[in-house]
């Protein structure tokens, strides 16, 4: 009976594994196709049938992207703005999350509901307001202009609040008895006790900011100020679209994020799990 049961479980496991593998192939194939195509000659790319491997592998599109475009500036812009967004988002969310979780002040509950409610508002709805505001401030085509509207990430605040809520209150009370100020309680007790979540949220925020397209696309018109996601739309000329060239640029754009993901895989998965229950 036990054997039959084990066999049934194994069959179920095998079916799930097959489904997962098929789903993974479906999901990963476009990435494979994009990478392979970036090594093909342009006329190979537009052939009507599927070729899983380049007939004449070439690096010329990469060479073009690296030498004939401003990809260096775009990298710098992306790194600077993504880092700026990450540092500012994480540090401000940390403070807000701590205040809402640990401090008692008038309006705390209203503030919390406002943050939760801000979830319901998609960024796209605000984008015209953001554009007008940033334009009036004269910040179009600047790093600050790219960064500022991207600092709204309620999910980071919510994750921090949840983590701070879970810290047993005795730690806070012990620190209060130890004459610690709020800033010291936060910096010496709460942050070190939650390093894992800070690292995870930083990585995920960095990836969000690096991948951002819509706002940087609107906020920047000068080629040298573009981030890499916007910059790759510029890899075409008057004679039309060159798919292989654009795909090579896209691979270069995605490379740092892919690398970051590989290096911090566990933390990223943790952060996605943390925010999965709340992220809209």
């Amino acid at each position, binding site marked *: 009976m036990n054997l039959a049961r084990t066999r049934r479980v194994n069959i179920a496991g095998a079916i799930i594994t097959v489904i997962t593998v098929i789903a993974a192939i479906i999901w990963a194939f476009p990435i494979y196709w994009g990478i392979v195509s970036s090594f093909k000659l342009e006329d190979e790319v537009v052939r009507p049938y599927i070729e899983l491997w380049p007939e004449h592998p070439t690096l010329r599109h990469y060479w073009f992207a690296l030498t004939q475009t401003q990809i260096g500036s775009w990298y710098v812009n992306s790194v600077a703005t993504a880092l700026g967004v990450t540092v500012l988002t994480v540090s401000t969310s940390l403070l807000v999350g701590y205040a809402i979780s640990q401090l008692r002040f008038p309006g705390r509950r209203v503030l919390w509901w406002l943050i939760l409610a801000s979830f319901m508002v998609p960024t796209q709805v605000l984008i015209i307001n953001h554009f007008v505001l940033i334009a009036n401030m004269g910040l179009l085509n600047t790093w600050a202009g790219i960064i500022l509207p991207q600092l709204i990430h309620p999910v980071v605040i919510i994750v921090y609040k949840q983590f701070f809520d879970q810290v*047993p209150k*005795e*730690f806070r*009370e*012990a*620190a*209060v*008895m*130890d*004459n*610690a*100020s709020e800033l*010291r309680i936060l910096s*010496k*007790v709460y942050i*070190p*006790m939650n*390093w894992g979540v800070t690292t995870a949220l930083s990585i995920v925020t960095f990836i969000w900011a690096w991948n951002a397209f819509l706002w940087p696309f609107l906020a920047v018109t000068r080629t040298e100020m573009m981030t890499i996601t916007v910059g790759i739309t510029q890899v075409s000329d008057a004679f039309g679209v060159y798919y292989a060239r654009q795909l090579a640029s896209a691979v270069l754009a995605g490379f740092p994020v892919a690398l970051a993901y590989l290096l911090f895989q566990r933390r990223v998965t943790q952060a996605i799990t943390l925010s999965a229950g709340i992220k809209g």
Partner: protein
Amino acid sequence: MADISLQNVSKSFGAVDVIKDISLEVEQGEFVVFLGPSGSGKSTLLRMIAGLESIDRGKLLIGGKECQDIAPGQRNVAMVFQNYALYPHMTVRDNMAFGLRNIGMKEKDIEARVADAGRILEMDALLDRRPSQLSGGQRQRVAIGRAIVKEPAAFLFDEPLSNLDAALRVRTRVELAQLHQRIAATMIYVTHDQTEAMTLADRIVILNDCRIEQIGTPMEVYTYPASRFVAGFVGSPGMNFLNSDVAVSGKEATATLGDGSRVAMSIDVPEGGTYELGIRPEAVHVVTGEGDTTGEATVVENLGDRTLVYTRLGDGSSVIALDDGRSQVAPGDTVSLRFDTSQLHLFDSSGRAYHAD
């Protein structure tokens, strides 16, 4: 002068009173234990002294200084928490130094104080470990060390032994008593464990229903409980209570028990009537001849040095009696019980106690 003085302090959470008009003086160097059942308000009272709970009405003086509106860290008291609350990411040394760094003490002085505390608590070798690398007893010691380094006016302990196993609890209890003798500091200790209270306290404050029922030395509260509640709460096994009709003649009284037996005693009660008669098991002796009453032994617990005999009297009421370690009593035997009438108590309907002479 009292080191800690509570004057008519009260507190409520919304409509619920949690501390009702409590006044208490704790002398310099005294070890005072707050003893009471869950929900009696003992922890709340301790937290009010610490500053972790606000005081709605009344005054709190520490070292003669009014403290009810002062931040917890500035009251010059240190607290040891039930679950230790050691910062898990800091070493033992940093845990102890944290409070001193917060007040801007020089590192050299901090080092000296931490080293002293390490010596007092015999944990010099543990200073560079993290809490996760320590046993329960060692963590408890670090928590006490964290309080010692502050050299506070008073130590506040919130059920500090309840997370330890039985053997370690006994050992740590002895260590605490020794520590108190060595540093002679004022200590307030909250527990629901009467053994801890009896063994550690200079004075016990018994709380019930958010009020103080009695304040006294361990022997006072044991021998002369102020109320029916204290009599029942202190002592293990608990005091025997028997319904009785009391006839009074001057300073003499005769109690008629439910089974018809009569017990005469010298006691000062204002009038006769229905009382509960209380007597501790060690004042009820199993005797071979005629006693004050007889009962049937239902359970016999031999504890080695003594034997507890659980008996049922003629009216069905229960009495626990004490016999010596080599008791021959077996369940089902009929035994004669003699009461030590100098250790009798009578409790009126309001719970007020009268003690026999």
